């Protein structure tokens, strides 16, 4: 948090680009030098003009005289040409200045973005549980932008201010130190005003952004819930409500506008005060002969160079403040340890035998449960679970909502880390296996799968490392999961884009896509976590039939709270409150007459699981 560490960190960021930054700053110096010297030749030209009018000798502007130049040595053409050449230099060197500072600052931004994405890709689910995706997004966008602004415009403006102010002051003092002091009177005010206003502006801007977020969420909800709003004929109320939100946003914007409206004019006024002071005291000096006409004109031009950097100084200070705060947030994310440790062993051609030995598991830290949408405490979610699935057999995991089914299968693929010595694949502890290797062989199709905004084809072939998979293979997968007819009905078939820029899939279609994805991975062990809950009965029936083909030669785990989905499994375990309360085949469990039999009875009587939906 302290300044020294920050300076160290920032210079660390800049170091790989230091060559380019050095060139950029050099170019900046040339620009500033030319900018400051050019007005002296304007002054010289004015002196020459004045002299030609009065017929007297032209006076030499002091800084030029100091380096041994005399006005008499110059013709008006020479003065004008030199002026133009200086202007040309000032202009041309701006190009390398920009390219050698702005471009590398963006490059550093890209490096940070890459480091961030690497970290995010490696972080564990447990870590994500404690984070809001909105916060992560804002680090990945706004914060990186703020650091970039600090390293680009921030550094450039700070250097510019420093160089230009020093150079201008040297020239001004050499012209007339008294007049310089007078011209500088408004500077402290400029500094104070910039500081205060930019602070107020930033606050106001933040408030507007925050309110924009609130208003946006309001709009989103109205549109997402349009069926209810229209269905209850409450459009008018909703519109009135939105108008209020919009009005409030307008008011906040107006407050910001008030600050913004004061900003530039006030700074202009300060420049005006400076000009007025120079006019009065410089003018009197000219009359009395203590200031030459040329110096006076040079003064008028040079003080303008002071107000710019002064405004810039306040600006770059706030850029550095914001940039540092953002850098802290970025670093916090980059430095967060990854709690899952990659193993070293690999299984070359596993048979897919699974063993779980007295597994007890509790989540670390608070976590929002996806199924019950309730925040869970830290008590054990699974207690003393043991089972074995032989290669090529299927296990059904049956139990009510919140019994720990999803947790159990998440541990098999190490989405969460099981304790050591509890979960084994082919006799190897999953914690000793390379994650990459484990997840190649054990594939989980989650209940609520995520669709990426890319084509259907790419969404299905997600597990394949080659970007292009034979379309025939994708179709075959889709057929197995009974998704093909749906996809074929899209105008663009398998090239249809999904997500925000494309079409939305229904819950059932998503689940079927998740199944196709999982099969596509061609794993030894396939886990279907309640993947048929939103699929209608007829389709479910057909998928269950295909399942035999899908699972042939693989080890399968089918998680469900529907009897029909698990009844064909070789063995079924019944989970209640995180414990195995019964196990056996479908027939054995029915005969045993416990929870399983009770639910089986209810489901067949009511046909409660959407069989007719």
């Amino acid at each position: 948090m302290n300044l020294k560490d920050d300076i160290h960190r920032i210079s660390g960021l800049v170091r790989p680009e230091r060559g380019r930054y050095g060139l950029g700053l050099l170019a900046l110096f040339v620009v500033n030098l030319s900018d400051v010297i050019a007005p002296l030749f304007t002054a010289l030209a004015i002196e020459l003009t004045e002299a030609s009018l009065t017929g007297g000798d032209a006076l030499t502007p002091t800084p030029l005289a100091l380096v041994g130049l005399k006005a008499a040595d110059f013709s008006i053409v020479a003065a004008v040409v030199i002026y133009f050449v200086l202007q040309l230099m000032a202009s041309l060197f701006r190009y390398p200045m920009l390219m050698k500072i702005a471009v590398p600052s963006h490059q550093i931004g890209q490096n940070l973005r890459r480091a961030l994405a690497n970290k995010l890709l490696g972080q564990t689910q447990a870590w994500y549980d404690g984070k809001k995706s909105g916060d992560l997004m804002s680090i990945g966008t706004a914060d990186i932008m703020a650091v970039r602004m600090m390293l680009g415009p921030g550094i450039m403006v700070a250097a510019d201010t420093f160089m230009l102010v020093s150079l201008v002051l040297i020239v001004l003092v050499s012209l007339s130190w008294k007049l310089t002091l007078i011209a500088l009177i408004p500077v402290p005010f400029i500094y104070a005003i910039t500081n205060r206003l930019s602070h107020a502006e930033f606050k106001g801007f933040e408030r507007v952004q925050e309110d924009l977020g609130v208003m946006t969420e309001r709009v989103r909800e109205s549109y997402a819930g349009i069926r209810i709003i229209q269905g209850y004929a409450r459009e008018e109320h909703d519109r009135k409500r939105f108008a209020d939100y919009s009005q409030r946003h307008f008011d906040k914007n107006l407050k910001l506008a008030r600050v913004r409206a004061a900003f530039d004019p006030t700074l202009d006024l300060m420049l005006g005060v400076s000009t007025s002071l120079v006019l009065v005291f410089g003018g009197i000096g000219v009359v009395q002969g203590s200031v030459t006409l040329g110096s006076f004109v040079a003064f008028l031009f040079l003080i303008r160079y002071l107000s710019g950097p002064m405004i810039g100084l306040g600006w770059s200070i706030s850029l550095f403040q914001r940039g540092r705060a953002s850098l802290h947030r970025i670093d916090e994310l980059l430095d967060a340890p990854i709690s899952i440790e990659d193993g070293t062993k690999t299984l070359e051609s596993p048979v897919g035998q699974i063993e779980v030995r007295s597994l007890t598991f509790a989540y670390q830290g608070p976590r929002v449960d996806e199924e019950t949408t309730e925040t869970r405490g830290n008590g054990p979610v699974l207690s003393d679970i043991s089972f074995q699935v032989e290669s090529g057999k299927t296990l059904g995991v049956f139990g009510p909502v919140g019994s720990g089914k999803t947790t159990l299968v998440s541990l098999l693929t190490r989405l969460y880390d099981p304790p050591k010595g509890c979960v084994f694949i082919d006799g190897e502890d999953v914690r000793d296996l390379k994650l990459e290797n484990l997840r190649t062989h054990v594939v989980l199709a989650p209940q609520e799968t995520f669709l990426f905004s890319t084509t259907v084809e790419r969404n299905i072939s997600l597990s394949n490392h080659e970007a292009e998979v034979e379309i025939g293979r994708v179709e075959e997968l889709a057929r197995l999961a009974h998704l093909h007819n749906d996809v074929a009905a899209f105008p663009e078939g398998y090239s249809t884009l999904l997500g925000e820029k494309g079409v939305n899939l229904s819950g059932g279609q998503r689940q079927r896509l998740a199944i196709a994805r999982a099969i596509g991975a061609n794993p030894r062990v396939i886990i279907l976590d309640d993947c048929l809950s939103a699929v209608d009965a007829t389709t479910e029936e057909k998928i269950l039939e295909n399942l035999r083909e899908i699972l042939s030669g693989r080890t399968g785990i089918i998680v469900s709270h529907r009897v029909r989905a698990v009844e064909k499994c070789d063995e079924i375990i019944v989970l209640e409150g995180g414990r195995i309360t019964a196990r056996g085949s479908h027939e054995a469990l029915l005969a045993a007459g416990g929870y399983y039999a009770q639910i089986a009875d209810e489901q067949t009587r009511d046909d409660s699981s959407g069989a007719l939906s």
Partner: protein
Amino acid sequence: MTKPLSKIEREALEIAKDPVLRKMLDEERVESEEVDLALLWRLVRYLGPHKGVASLSVFLSLVESFLMTLPAYIVGLALDRAQGGTQRKAQVFDQALDGVANKLATYSDLGTPQTRVIAVFGLILLSVWCVRWVSAMGTTFIVQKLGQQVVHDLRVDVFNHISGQGLEYFHKNPVGRLVNRTTFDVQALSELFSDAFAQGMRDLMFVTVLTAVMLSLDVQLAAVLILSLPLLVLVALAYRKLARPSLRTMSAVQSRMNGWLAENISGMRENQLYRREPRRRAEWFSLTEAHQTSIYRVIQAWGFLRPGMMIISGAATAAVLGLGYERVSAGLISVGVLVTFLEYTSRIWVPVRNLTEKFNVIQTALTAGERVFDVLNTPTTMSDTASVDTKLIVHQGAIRFQDVVFHYPGTTEEVLKGINFEVRPGEMIGLVGDTGAGKSTIIQLLSRFYDVNSGRVSIDGHDVRDYSLSKLRSGVALVPQDVVIFAGTVRENITLGADYSDDEVMGCIRAVCAEDLVERFEEGLDHVFDEGGRTLSAGERQLISFARALLVNPPILVLDEATASIDTRTETKIQQALAELTAGRTTVVIAHRLSTIRDADSILVLRKGAILEEGNHDILMAKNGEYAALYRAHTA
């Protein structure tokens, strides 16, 4: 009118190899090349209600333009007066300023007359600056306010328009897109107002006033500066040509990156489950690479603009110096006038620079504006028909479908193929069938979310099209499968914004056995639910949805039964609540549990848009057809 991709766009795509980016660039390219005057005109019309303020801002801008030309003028004049030069010919403001100066000078006897004149001019200069300070603040504020006002009006219009659209529209347009149109795109238009309109107007006035003043001072020097203007514009145009494709590419890549990041954070579990990490890493690398390439081009264009303009203004200044020397020597102008001109050279390019630097913002705003007006131009698909009887309300709740044929707009497949059925007031009908059988379509036609293609849907003997939409929907309450919880109080979530007393609201909550939902919060009805009601269980959401429906006290209730898993305790409550809710109402149920409709007066078994079987449970069981088969298949 799609144009081929520009070089930089091809380059970025080459690097990124991203189909979504390609689509985004394609979408962007459809935008018209030139400023759409019709669009600007539509925006200007939004100024109508604020005519007074708008004219005030025009007037203030004019005043400001004069004030901005004055300081340099005063400095020059003061210089001439201080030197007592005689060659200055009387100019536009000379008399007025001299008059004021002489008058003021008589109030003091400090120093020589010359120094006194200078001090007075200094004073005048300072006061001009002060007046300009006030007027600039005023103008800026008024212009900003005007812009925000227009944006507010527009935002409300867009929201009202969208929320009046039929469901079909919401199916076609993802919510995210519509939200962007309503907030971000409209917001972008405010910059069009303050940066393009207002600043452009101010700049134009300033250039006009400045030109007039310069011409009156000295035609030849003025000509030099005025001639430099087209050159500056030329540089600006060259920049525009250079920067435009790069800017467009950059912003497309940027929004693609944001989208990529958002979705990969949300889809991280899938990335890890399916070992996508190396691939994602490569994707992200390519995207940042493409981003950097486009940024490089943008900066390059920028690096060309500023120096280009400075070289031209430098050349103009040099020309003024050279020519000024000639003219002063020849006694045609005074040194003061020359100094004034020198000041003006540094001013005249500012307006062009402003406009060019804001070019990006303006372009973005224009594109956003086009999208916003596209939304407003899309006609509302569902509205009251001409034959509507505004007094008609749903009274008894008799439903009748006669030969109803329907296909969704934009498709040809008939989802209902001649449906006939009737429900008497107070009866319950159950709809059973697979996905795609037409159950949801039937209930959507009943609430008139869509209109039939042929046939007739009537309630209490009147065609649903004869009711006003609001009266119809007040009479037909929908309890959907997925309950939407709005961020807001419990009360708002149940009343949906309408005025009901707390007693009425509480009455409904008690009737659906949801009182502990309210009682467990200190603030009671004023308790604010989280975004999306994340803390509520599926069962609790259902109960809220029931309370919503009960409050409206509708003659017809449409119930799309939830499939979500609910614990047994809540389940019992829901059954109780359902009994309370359906009592005495005509009820249409899409059943997922046969227990709900076993006692229904009638059950429709649907398949592929046609009624397969009809009758109550006993009749259908006796008939031993599809229903019985389905029923038995799961009891066997």
